[in-house]
């Protein structure tokens, strides 16, 4: 059952300095099944973040349509949770209040939303940090909070925009493993934007390669789960798939 579908999606900007229209996304069609983990990779400027921003409703699209469970997407909403590269945690709220923010906006009473938030913090191994402020946490911990904050709101689709790009390499691998574990437990529908080919293959059921505002190709990833770097790094299928995607991205 497909949850999200993009049909002939298009985005053109007017550049007031050049005085002309610039096309960021030419024509993108993509269906995402419920519970599927889709990675979108491509070189910078391929339009991947623009697509995510349109799906999130942060920017309007110029043509085509975005359907979520059959209804057209208009503006941002709680049915599409977003995880940002900048983490975007509220600095004036504790970790617990950050994770409980979505339920709070739905009008869930304090005791219930605290319970929900604690449950999700436990999922991310962050129970001990509930009463700390974001600036007291490391980058890796902050992004764990970012992920469970989006999940705690039970979105129909989780949109992740290069969420691990600003943490160090070791932490990134741990976060990737944790994300696959959480995905297996909760089976959220995920669109994961990245420029890191290995990351895209490691996480996804399917990798979509984007080039110059178009879908270049798609590859299914049938690697067994749980996925762990120690195993996959030696794995022939993983290496072959990664090489294949890398080649496409480089030729893009």
């Amino acid at each position, binding site marked *: 059952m497909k949850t999200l579908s993009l049909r002939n999606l298009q985005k053109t900007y007017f550049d007031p300095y050049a005085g002309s229209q610039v096309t960021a996304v030419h024509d993108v069609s993509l269906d995402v099944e419920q519970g599927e983990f889709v990675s979108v990779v491509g070189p910078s400027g391929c339009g991947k973040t623009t697509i995510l921003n349109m799906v999130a409703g*942060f920017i309007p699209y110029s043509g085509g349509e975005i359907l979520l469970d059959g209804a057209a997407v208009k503006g941002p909403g709680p049915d599409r949770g977003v995880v940002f590269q900048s983490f975007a945690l509220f600095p004036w709220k504790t970790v617990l209040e950050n994770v409980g923010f979505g339920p709070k*906006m739905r009008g869930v009473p304090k005791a219930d939303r605290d319970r929900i938030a604690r449950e999700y913090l436990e999922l991310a191994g962050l129970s001990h940090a509930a009463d700390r402020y974001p600036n007291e946490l490391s980058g890796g911990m902050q992004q764990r909070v970012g992920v469970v*904050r989006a999940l705690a709101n039970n979105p129909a689709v989780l949109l992740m925009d290069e969420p691990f790009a600003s943490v160090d390499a070791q932490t990134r691998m741990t976060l990737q493993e944790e994300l696959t574990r959480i995905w297996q437990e909760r089976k959220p529908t995920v669109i994961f934007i990245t420029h890191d080919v290995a990351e895209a293959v490691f996480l996804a059921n399917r990798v979509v390669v984007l080039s110059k505002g178009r879908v270049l190709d798609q590859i299914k990833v049938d690697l067994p789960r749980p996925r762990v770097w120690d195993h996959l790094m030696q794995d022939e299928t993983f290496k072959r798939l990664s090489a294949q995607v890398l080649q496409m991205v480089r030729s893009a």
Partner: protein
Amino acid sequence: MSIVLKLWSLYVRGTNRWPVIATIVPFIPVVALWSIAANSGMFPRAFFPAPADVARTFVALTYKGILPDYLQDSLIRLLTGATIGVVLGIPLGLLIGSSKWAHRVCWPVLLFFQAIGDIAWLPILLIWFGFGLTTMTFVIVYTVLFPIVLNTVLGVESVHRDLARAAQSLGASRMRVLWEVTLPGALPNIITGLRNGLGYGWRALIAVEIIVGTSGIGFMMFDARRAGSTVEIILGMIVLGTLWYIVDAWILAPIERATGRRWGLVTS
């Protein structure tokens, strides 16, 4: 040597226990120098009073109730003006900061009126409203308003775009975004604006009381000039400095520490 170290240790432990000592100690040499200069006989005593004279006048005026009354008048004027300034300034700042159009329209006008200093309004205000409370309140509101508006705008613009987006995609309406994201995000700047505004407002108040007043610390100082009482003038100056120190160190600085520093929005 060891005595110096012991004294130093005593001072460090003392200021740890009673921070107010750290505030008072730096003034000891100032007062001492003043005392020596006044008692040296270089200037006539009526012209340059000693600390002891000022202290005596302080006690006398407090006992008569003049100083407390005047102080109260000044503080109430400042508080009234500041409250109106805050009530007008923060919403205006939020509007200008969050709307591109409001910014384009209001910003140049704002800077223009900011440049016309508070005191420059006095001549026309005196014609319009006369020598009274309206004129005084107008000047203080005017003085407090601009630092608050300008800093609020700055604060709103400094809030990362992703924070508002995050709130929206977690289900927040525009009003909730304003309340949960924009306002707290801008708060450290708003407090800075308030701090500046109150500081300027306090100075403006004294100036206005000198010209318009019938009471207040500024009036007391100017009235003392007429009587040639340097003691009262200097007392007024000391009261101004002390009072501002108290407001800043005991009220504004703690608020700043509890918000921006705590959240890591202000680093220092």
